[in-house]
């Protein structure tokens, strides 16, 4: 199996690689970011595609992917929620927010580990993970849903109903 990368995306990736003239290996992170942004996660084919693109052995790319919890190795939901758990938000109730979001969206987080931080709802609509500081410490608890920022979240039902 190989990844079918649209030519637009490949063009963008090729451009990013040119920023690293000394060692193509340095372009692993930007390439992976571009792929994750497009596909939502990095699977085995994406690892191998990246390795081939940068003349690396796949294991060298896998090392990077598994190091950063930010790179998802399995598909997230249609709407991916990141709940801030850094100090201010934690004190303002981010753990309660997480619990409530999981409860309403039917997400089971019992399988979450450091290297597998994401849990997905059974219908695949929502996925959730904790994030570190989202830079809005005065208005906690805050969360990101895909690229939308939500401050002082209290109405969980209302929040989720935006995303259907």
């Amino acid at each position, binding site marked *: 199996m190989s990844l079918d990368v649209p030519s637009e995306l490949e063009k963008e990736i090729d451009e990013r690689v040119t920023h690293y003239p000394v060692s193509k290996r340095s372009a692993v992170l930007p390439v992976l970011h571009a792929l994750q942004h497009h596909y939502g996660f990095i699977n085995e084919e994406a690892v191998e595609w990246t390795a081939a693109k940068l003349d690396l052995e796949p*294991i060298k790319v896998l090392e990077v992917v*598994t190091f950063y919890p930010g790179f998802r190795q399995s598909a997230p939901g249609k709407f991916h929620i990141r709940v801030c758990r850094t100090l201010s938000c934690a004190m303002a109730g981010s753990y309660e927010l997480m619990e409530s979001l999981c409860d309403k969206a039917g997400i089971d987080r019992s399988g979450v580990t450091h290297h597998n931080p994401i849990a997905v709802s059974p219908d695949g609509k929502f996925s959730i993970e904790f994030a570190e500081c989202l830079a809005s410490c005065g208005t906690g608890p805050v969360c990101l849903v895909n690229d939308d920022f939500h401050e002082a979240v209290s109405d969980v039902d209302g929040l989720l109903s935006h995303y259907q």
Partner: protein
Amino acid sequence: MSEEKNDLIDVQINGEWHSFPKGTRMIEACRQVGVEVPHYCYHPKLTSPGNCRMCLVEMGMPPRPRPGDDPPEPDETGHLPISWIPRPAIACANTIAPNMGIRTESEMTEECREGVMELLLANHPLDCPICDQAGECSLQEFSVEHGKGESRFREQKVKKPKNVDVGPRIRLDDERCIMCSRCIRFTDEIADDPVLGFTDRGSHTVLTVYPGRELANNYSLNTVDICPVGALTSNDFRFQMRVWFMKETKTIDVNCATGANITVFARENKIYRITPRQNNDVNSDWMPDSHRLNFHWIESDARLTDPLVRDGDKHRLATWQEAIATTADKLAGLDGSEIAVIASARMTNEELLMTSRLVKHLGAGHVDVVPREGENDGYLIAADRNPNTNGVMLVLGLENPGSQLEAIKDGIAQGRIKALLCLQENLVEDAGFGSELLSKLDFFLTSYPLANPTADIADVVLPGACWAEKTGTMVNVTGRLQRLNKAVDGPGQTLEAWEIIRDLIQATGGGNGIYSATDIFKQLAAEVPEFADLSWGQIGDLGIPLIETGETIPLLEREKERIEKGLIVG
């Protein structure tokens, strides 16, 4: 400070000044003057990532005066005072500098080592009693020297994969791994098969083989040798024998003309494992798996243990006296032109000298050896799969080994050759001699370690010692003279080929007076010009260059390039 002479730099190690060539790594400088710096990740044949931190030492340089201050004054030895840097430095990846100071026994160094050991042991299983590495484990050794008696770690140890099948010959215990990355660098830099890596880096770092791939290249077992702990173990050797019970014999590999230097580990006459032995002119620190594991046949049930003579259509046991006397009888009535001798390029120079004596003594009209050609693997395996073809050319005087075999076959087919002495070869399976052809001979003698279809046809079958059971010398593909040392005794009545040939010469009316392979070596030195004035002791454990063949060993050439580029120490 003394001026740099011939690019030598003065460095103070534990209070004493020494000179080293420019560019020497700190760890190597210490080693050269007998100061051990404990380390895990550093290996002179691999790049130095400096990740284990075990080689931290205290380092100092001459003080740099502030602008306007006087520069420091040299002392009476010409060296500047050393101002010690309050942070430790790794000795493996840093090179020496003029007037540098290194302290490996200071309080700071000791503290560093203790700290590193404590962290390494925090998650290391305490399973030394069942670990194959015990007895040759750097972690165990440095724990004794630099560790604490007991652990302060009260938390849960991290659980990681155990008994992982990473390849056909290797098993991985990730909990024992200390993340030195030697195996990763070996597969990447030397074996060109980078399938290993660290995934899930962090508190749960695991050594992983890339999903769907395996560590299966023909050099994979070298990772087991360089693993400083028991994380990578050999399927062939694991749980077989404690390392401290085994006797180590330095000898050479005979599976190809490279003649990799090896150590044979045996106990009570049984070989348990073979590991490469460092020789930077032959095999560096490595050897191929195919050669390393090719020793179990030595214990095979098919080993010949006693001389056999033909009795009708069967063989029966005989004494050496009877077997040799039978041979002498059969040869007595024959003219030299009716006798052919096929020796082996797996024989030692000493055995080949005896063979040439036998040939001369019998006036044998035909002599040759069986060639074994394969492919050069681009690493350490030579195309010539015989270990001593150069010896055959020098000692037996054959210009083109293997070129006479067809003529010998024809001679047998036409009845011109009536007797054939096959020494340490398997003509039917390895040289294309048909059983029917060999049945035409009036007399056929074969000596070999194993029973085989060639022996089935022979009139006299003699049990010859295998490579691990004999002493002698061989000349490798580059023309290096190396010593083969006896690691175990042959089974039953087995004799070394030189002993068999000596007895044959004696029984057919020739001289004697040879009692050991080293005796024959003295005669080699006297008779063969290339060996002139050489002595057994001179060859040493690493061999000496004997002739120029113009051949090179590809892996060594690549290592030389890496040394020149400063990537590795070498």
